[in-house]
């Protein structure tokens, strides 16, 4: 390996053979398995500089190739620690990128092995719950005396006063929806928590209005052992006004 080259890193795994993966990576170079004391780093030789391109399409392709390589390595080695997109190891202090990577693997060896052990045979699943407040609201309104009284009052008042009361009503509705979302979140979280080994709460994403994502989770579970989780999500998805998205299995990015 030339000393001035960098190494793009895809993932780490456990193994004892430095066999080629027979893949091309995002730079078009062969993907290699770099072995160091029972740990394998899946890498590709590249320029020792930041992955950059003016062309978004090139970067987007690179991202998909990154994930594809991690996926294929995941199939081969059963357990991987996936790296975030865009990490390049550089040569420095007279050492090649490969030597630097091995040095890092040596220093972090215990922690990396511990992580690989914890993630053995496990996969990550994405769970998102989306609700339509316009469908849920009538139920809330039906059970809320304060809202009902205010609505009656608005009808009996002159326009100016009614306008102010309507604003007050909108505030109360907003608050009730937030409270309801919170109650649903806690309930769903507990039910999902019981079906998986580990769980991370992620930031919610924007949905097309009026729909809103009220829950975005990353769940760690034995690969393909998600029958219980699937059943629970099906129940949640049957509640009127709620949709559930269930994605995966993914390499355990959120738990690496």
């Amino acid at each position, binding site marked *: 390996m030339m000393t001035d080259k960098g190494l793009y890193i895809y993932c780490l795994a456990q193994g004892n053979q430095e066999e080629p993966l027979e893949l091309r990576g995002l730079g078009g170079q*062969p993907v290699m398995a770099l072995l160091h004391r029972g740990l394998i780093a899946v890498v590709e030789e590249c320029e020792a500089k930041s992955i*950059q391109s003016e062309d978004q399409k090139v970067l987007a392709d690179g991202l998909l190739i990154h994930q594809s390589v991690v996926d294929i390595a995941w199939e081969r080695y059963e357990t991987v620690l996936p790296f975030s997109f865009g990490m390049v190891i550089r040569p420095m202090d007279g050492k090649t990128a490969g030597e630097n990577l091995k040095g890092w693997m040596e220093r972090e060896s215990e922690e990396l092995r511990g992580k690989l052990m914890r993630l053995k045979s496990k996969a990550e699943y994405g769970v*998102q719950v989306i609700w339509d407040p316009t469908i849920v609201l009538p139920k809330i309104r039906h059970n809320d005396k304060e809202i009902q009284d205010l609505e009656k009052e608005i009808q009996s008042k002159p326009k100016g006063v009614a306008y102010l009361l309507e604003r007050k009503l909108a505030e109360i509705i907003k608050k009730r929806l937030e409270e309801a979302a919170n109650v649903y979140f806690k309930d769903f979280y507990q039910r999902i928590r019981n079906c998986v080994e580990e769980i991370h709460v992620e930031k919610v994403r924007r949905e097309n209005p009026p729909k809103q994502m009220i829950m975005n989770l990353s769940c760690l579970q034995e690969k393909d052992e998600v029958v219980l989780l699937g059943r629970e999500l099906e129940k949640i998805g049957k509640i009127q006004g709620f949709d559930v998205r269930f994605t995966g299995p993914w390499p355990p990015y959120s738990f690496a």
Partner: protein
Amino acid sequence: MEPTRQGRATLVDLLDRVLDKGLVINADIIISLAGIPLIAVELRAAVASVETMWEYGLMRDFIGTHPRA
């Protein structure tokens, strides 16, 4: 309910993971992607325009069936 890896919403879910999650090396031997938050926003848009997972599948076929001699 079965988990899926198909569809546009799924692709966004995957992107969030590959861009924001995953192992990082915090040491001077690493050159990381400069300006990640900005790139992430642009990449999400670029990848969201990829025709669902079709192109993703194609990518996988490409890297898997064209090994270097």
